[in-house]
C-alpha cells in the first residue's frame, strides 16, 4: 500500500474520531466543568475551557490516531531479520503545512484568551492598575481582602472601613476585591466565584467579580504560606441585596468596640518586617 | 597524578588546537554566565528603585562615597588593561601580570575598607541591600579571578625559569607554549569582561 492510501485511511479514522469526540467533549463534558456558574467570571471560565477543549481534542486525537495507526501498520512483522525502512529525510510540503496549521491554532488561542481576559479580567488579580474592568466597575462594591498567617479578614471601605471575619457579598453586583497581605504571600481563591488573586504584602491586587444569585462559596489560600497553609480555608456567601445590608448593619454593631482601635483603611499595610516567626 | 602518557604509539594524538580553542571558547562562555549572574542585581536595582515599596528605597541618609567607587573602578580598569597588554608581550607577562594582580587585590581591599566606613547598614532600604549584595559578590568573584590571574603569572614565571614543558596529554606533540598563551588570553579576556561589569556597577551604584 502506498503513502497516499495510508494517509487517506488515517485521515478517515481521525475525522471519524474527531467528529464523534469533539461535540461530546464540548457539549457534554465541558458545561459541567468547574468552577461552575457562580459568577459571570466563573461561567466565562467554563466557556473558555469549553473552547480550549474543543480545539485541543482534535489536535490530541490527530497525534494519538497517527501513532496508533503507524505503530500498527508499520510494525516489524519479521523479527528475525533487521531490515531498514525507506531513507526519507523530510517532506517540505508536510513541514510547511504543519507549521502553518500549528501557528494558526496558537495565534487563535492567544488572541481568544487575550480577548476573553480583556473583557472582564476573568476573575484574576490584576494588581493596583487593572486593565480589564467589567462594565459597571466604576460603581463596584469595594471589598478589601487581608490575608495573614493563617486567616483572611475583610474590610468594607464604603462602610467606614468595617473589618469582618467573614466574607459576604451582595448578589448581582460588581465587586472589586482588593487583595493584600500583612506578612507573606498568600493567594485568595474564591472557588465558585472563579476568583484567584495573590495576596502580596505591600501590594493592592484588584480582582473584579460580578456576582449572580445567592450561593455559598469556598475560600482557600492557594499559595504556600507557611506551616498552617493547609488549614487556611473558610466559606463565604453571596446573599440578596437586602440581606447584605442587614448583615453589614449587624457586623457594624458587633465590631463597633474593635473598630476604634483599628488602623485606618489603607490600600496596603506595612507592619514591622517579620524576619522570623511561624 | 597526571594524564597518562600515550604509551602505545598507535594512539592518534589529539589535534593540538583543541585545548587552546576550548580555552578561548570557555572564557567567552564564562563571560555569559557572569553577565547573567550580575544581571540579577541590575534587575534588582532598577526593580526596587522603580517600585520604591513603602517609600523605603533609601531609608535615612544613604550616601555612598563616590571617591571610593571611582578608585575601585580605576584600579580594576588599570588591572584589566595591564593583563590585556601582557597577552601581546610574552616577555613581559610576569611584570605586567604582577601589576594586574596587585591592582585587582587593591580594588578588593578598597572595597573592604569602604564597607567598614559606610554610613549605613544593609537594612537601610532597597538601595542599601542591592549595594551590599552586589559589591559583596563582586568582590568574592574578583578574588577568584585574582587566583586565575595568579596562576597565569606563576606559570609564566616558572616556564621562564625552567623552560616550557612538553605537552603531555592525549599524545599531543610539541610544547606547552600555545596552551599557555591561550590560557593567558582566556584569563585576560574574562578579566576584562568582569572589569566591565565592575564599571557598570560603578555607574549604576554610584553615578545614576
Amino acid at each position: 500500500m502506498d503513502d497516499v492510501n495510508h494517509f487517506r485511511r488515517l485521515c478517515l479514522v481521525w475525522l471519524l474520531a474527531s467528529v464523534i469526540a469533539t461535540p461530546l467533549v464540548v457539549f457534554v463534558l465541558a458545561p459541567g466543568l468547574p468552577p461552575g456558574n457562580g459568577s459571570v467570571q466563573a461561567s466565562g471560565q467554563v466557556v473558555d475551557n469549553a473552547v480550549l477543549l474543543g480545539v485541543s481534542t482534535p489536535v490530541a486525537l490527530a497525534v494519538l490516531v497517527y501513532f496508533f495507526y503507524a505503530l500498527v501498520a508499520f510494525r516489524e512483522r519479521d523479527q528475525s531479520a533487521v531490515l531498514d525502512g525507506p531513507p526519507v529525510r523530510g517532506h517540505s510540503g508536510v513541514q510547511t503545512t504543519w507549521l502553518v496549521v500549528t501557528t494558526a491554532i496558537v495565534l487563535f488561542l492567544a488572541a481568544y484568551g487575550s480577548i476573553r481576559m480583556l473583557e472582564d479580567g476573568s476573575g484574576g488579580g490584576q494588581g493596583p492598575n487593572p486593565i480589564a474592568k467589567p462594565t459597571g466597575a466604576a460603581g463596584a462594591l469595594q471589598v478589601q481582602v487581608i490575608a495573614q498567617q493563617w486567616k483572611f479578614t475583610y474590610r468594607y471601605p464604603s462602610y467606614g472601613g468595617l473589618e469582618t471575619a467573614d466574607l459576604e457579598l451582595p448578589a448581582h453586583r460588581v465587586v472589586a476585591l482588593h487583595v493584600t497581605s500583612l506578612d507573606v504571600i498568600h493567594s485568595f481563591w474564591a472557588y465558585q466565584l472563579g476568583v484567584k488573586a495573590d495576596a502580596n504584602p505591600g501590594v493592592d491586587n484588584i480582582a473584579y467579580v460580578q456576582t449572580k444569585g445567592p450561593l455559598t462559596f469556598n475560600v482557600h489560600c492557594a499559595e504556600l504560606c507557611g506551616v498552617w497553609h493547609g488549614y487556611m480555608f473558610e466559606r463565604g456567601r453571596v446573599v440578596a441585596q437586602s440581606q447584605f445590608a442587614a448583615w453589614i448593619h449587624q457586623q457594624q454593631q458587633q465590631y463597633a468596640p474593635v473598630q476604634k482601635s483599628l488602623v485606618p483603611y489603607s490600600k496596603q499595610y506595612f507592619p514591622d518586617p517579620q524576619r522570623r516567626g511561624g | 597524578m597526571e594524564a597518562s602518557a600515550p604509551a602505545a604509539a598507535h594512539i592518534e594524538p589529539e589535534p593540538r588546537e583543541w585545548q587552546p580553542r576550548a580555552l578561548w571558547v570557555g572564557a567567552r562562555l564564562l563571560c555569559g554566565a557572569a553577565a547573567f549572574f550580575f544581571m540579577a542585581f541590575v534587575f534588582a536595582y532598577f526593580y526596587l528603585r522603580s517600585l520604591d515599596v513603602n517609600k523605603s528605597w533609601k531609608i535615612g541618609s544613604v550616601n555612598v562615597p563616590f571617591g571610593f567607587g571611582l578608585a575601585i573602578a580605576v584600579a580594576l580598569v588599570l588591572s584589566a588593561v595591564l593583563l590585556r597588554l601582557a597577552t601581546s608581550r610574552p616577555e613581559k607577562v610576569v611584570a605586567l601580570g604582577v601589576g594586574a594582580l596587585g591592582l585587582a587585590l587593591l580594588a578588593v581591599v578598597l572595597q573592604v575598607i569602604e564597607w567598614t566606613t559606610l554610613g549605613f547598614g544593609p537594612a537601610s532600604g532597597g538601595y542599601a541591600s542591592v549595594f551590599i549584595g552586589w559589591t559583596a559578590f563582586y568582590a568574592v568573584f574578583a578574588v577568584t579571578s585574582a587566583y586565575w590571574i595568579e596562576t597565569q603569572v606563576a606559570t609564566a614565571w616558572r616556564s621562564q625559569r625552567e623552560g616550557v614543558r612538553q605537552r603531555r596529554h592525549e599524545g599531543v606533540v610539541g610544547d606547552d607554549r600555545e596552551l599557555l598563551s591561550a590560557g593567558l588570553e582566556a584569563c585576560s579576556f574574562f578579566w576584562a569582561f568582569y572589569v566591565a561589569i565592575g564599571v557598570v556597577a560603578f555607574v549604576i551604584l554610584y553615578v545614576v
Partner: protein
Amino acid sequence: MSAIAVTADRRPAWRRLIGFNLLTGIVLGIVGWLIGDEIGKAIHAPSLDYYSDSAGQNDISILLGYLFGVIGFLIGLGFANYPVRRLLGHPPTLAEHEDEGEGVGRYFRLCTDHKVVAIQYIIGIGVFFLVGGINAMLIRTELLQPNTHVFGANQYLTLVGMHGAMMMGMMTSVILGPFANWLVPLMIGTRRMAFPRIEAFTFWLLMAAGVILVTTIFFGGFQTGWTGYAPLSDQGTAGYDAYIGFFALIGVSMCLLGFNLLATIITMRAPGMTWSRLPIFVWSVVATAVLMLLAAPMLIATLLMAALDRTAQTAFFIPGNGGSPYLYQNLFWVFGHPEVYIVALPGFGIVLELLPVFSRKPLWGYRLAVAGMLGVSLLSFFVWQHHLFVSGINADLRPFYMLSTELISLPTGFIFLCAMGTIWRGRIRFTVPMLFCLGWVFNFLIGGISGVFLSDVPSDVTTHGSFFSMAHFHYTIMGGLVFTLFAAIYYWGPKMFGVRFNDRLSKIHFWSLFIAFNSTFAPLFALGMLGMPRRVVTYPANLQPLNDWVSVSAFVIGLSMIVFLVNLVWSLVLKREPADPNPWRSKSLEWQLPTPVPLHDFDTFPVFDEDPYPYGVERPGPPAFAPAGGAG
C-alpha cells in the same frame, strides 16, 4: 583491551583507604562543617534575636558550616591538589586518575575519565532520586486521609519541599550528567570533555548538595516548597538554609556542566563532524547547556540574596524595608522557566535519537528538530511571567506572556512532527527503550495540551496553583524526563555497563510504570479542577475517594520502581550476562565501539562523511575509524 598498561594496585586494603578519596572527603567535610559552625557562632546572627542558639537556629553558623563542609569535602577528594600546583606555577594538565585500571576504587575518588564520571552520576543521582521518590510516597500516604494523620503540618511541608527540590534541582542533571558526559565525546568523536576536572567537579558538588538538602530535617525543615518564595523564606526556620545551600550548589554544578558541554561540542568535534551532522541528542544537549549556562547564575544570585536577607539583614524581599516579594518571584522564574526546559529538552533528544534506530529509518526533518530544540531554548527565557498570572504583576503584559507561552508549543510541535515523520513507513520494533519513547509521546502530549489551559489567563485563574498545574508538570517532567531517562538507561545501559538487562522484568517495569503513572496523575487534573490547591495537608472530605485512588496508584509506581531496582541488581550484580556490542543494530558511532568501551575510546579519530542516521542507504555502517584495541 585498553591501550594503556594498567598497573594493579598491590597495596593492602587498609592502605588504599588513605589518600584523596571519598572517605577522606567525608572526614574533611565533617571537619570543615565544625570549623565553619564555630566561626559562625562567633558572629551574632539576627536569627538569635528570635531563637536561642541552643535551638540550632543560627543561620550564619549553619551556612558557614555548609560552605566549609563542602570545601573540606572537595579537598578530601583531591580537588585542591591541581589548583595548588597551578598556584605554584606548574603547567596545566588535563586529566587525573584516568589510568587507574578496572577496579571499583576509581568510582570513589576524583577521576576525570568521562565514562567513570557518567557511571558515578547515574548511581549517585539514582540514590537521591530514590530519596525524592520515597518523599513522594510519604506525601501520598499523608494524603490518604483528608486530615493530618501520619505527619504533622511542618513535616508534611518539609517532605513536599524536599521532594520538589530533589526532583527539580538535582534531576536537572539526571540525563545530562550520566548520558551527556558519557555520550557526547563518543558521539562527536573525541576522547574527553574539554575540561575534565570541571566535569568531575560538577558531579561531586551535586552529591554534596544532595546531602545538604537532607540535613534540613535536623534544622526544623523548610516550609516553602521547592520555589522557596520570599518573604516566607525570610521568616522560615533554619532548615531553609539547607535549601539555599542545596540549590546554590546545584546552580553552580548546572552552570559548569552546561559550560563544559558547550565548550566540548563547540571545539572538539572530530574531522567531518559538522554542525549539520551532529546526532540529534547532541543538539538537544547544546540547547539544554545554553539554558544551564545562562539561567543557573540567576538562580545562584537569587539564592544568595535570600541568604543575605537571612544573615546580613538586607531587605531584598522584605517590603516594609524597601524590598519586594515580586523581585524574588521574577528572578526565580526567569531561572525557573528555562529550568523546566533544562529538564525536558534532553528527553526530546533521546526520543528523536532512539526512534530512528527502532524504526530503521533516518531521522525525519533533522533541521526542523534542531530548530525546534533551539526555539524552545530561546523562547523559554521569555515566558516566565505566566507563573505570575494572578500575582497582580504587570497586568498589561499578560497578553504578551500568553502569546509567548503558547508560541513554545510551535517548536515543541516540531519535535512531535519529527517523531511522527520518523516512524512513518518504518519497520518498527517494540523493544523496551522504544516502549519508553512511545510512553513519552503519550505523556508529553497530555502534558503539553494541559499546558494550554494554564497558559490561557481565564482558564489559569482556576487552575493556577491547584492540583491541575501539579498534574501538568508531572506529566511533562515525570512523563517526559523520567520516561526518557529509562529509555536511555535501557538503550545505552548495555554499552555503559556491559551487561544485558532482563527483558521480561524490563517490560513489566515499563507497563506497570506507564499504567500507574497515568492512573496517578490523570485524576489530579480533576482534583485541581475541583478546587484542591497544591501543598495542602488537608482537603475537603468529598475529595477523599479520588485522593485515595491517586495514592494507591502512586504506591504502584513505587512498586514499579522496585521492579526496576530488582532488574538492576539481577542484571548488573547477580547475572552479569555480557551484552552484545550492538544489540539494537544501531548505526551510530557509539555502538561501533567494543564493549566495554576502552579507556581511550578511539585509537584513531573517526572521520565523518554523512549524517548519523544512515538507515536504508546503500553505504551502510559507521564512519571510517579504527576502534581502540582493534576489537570490533
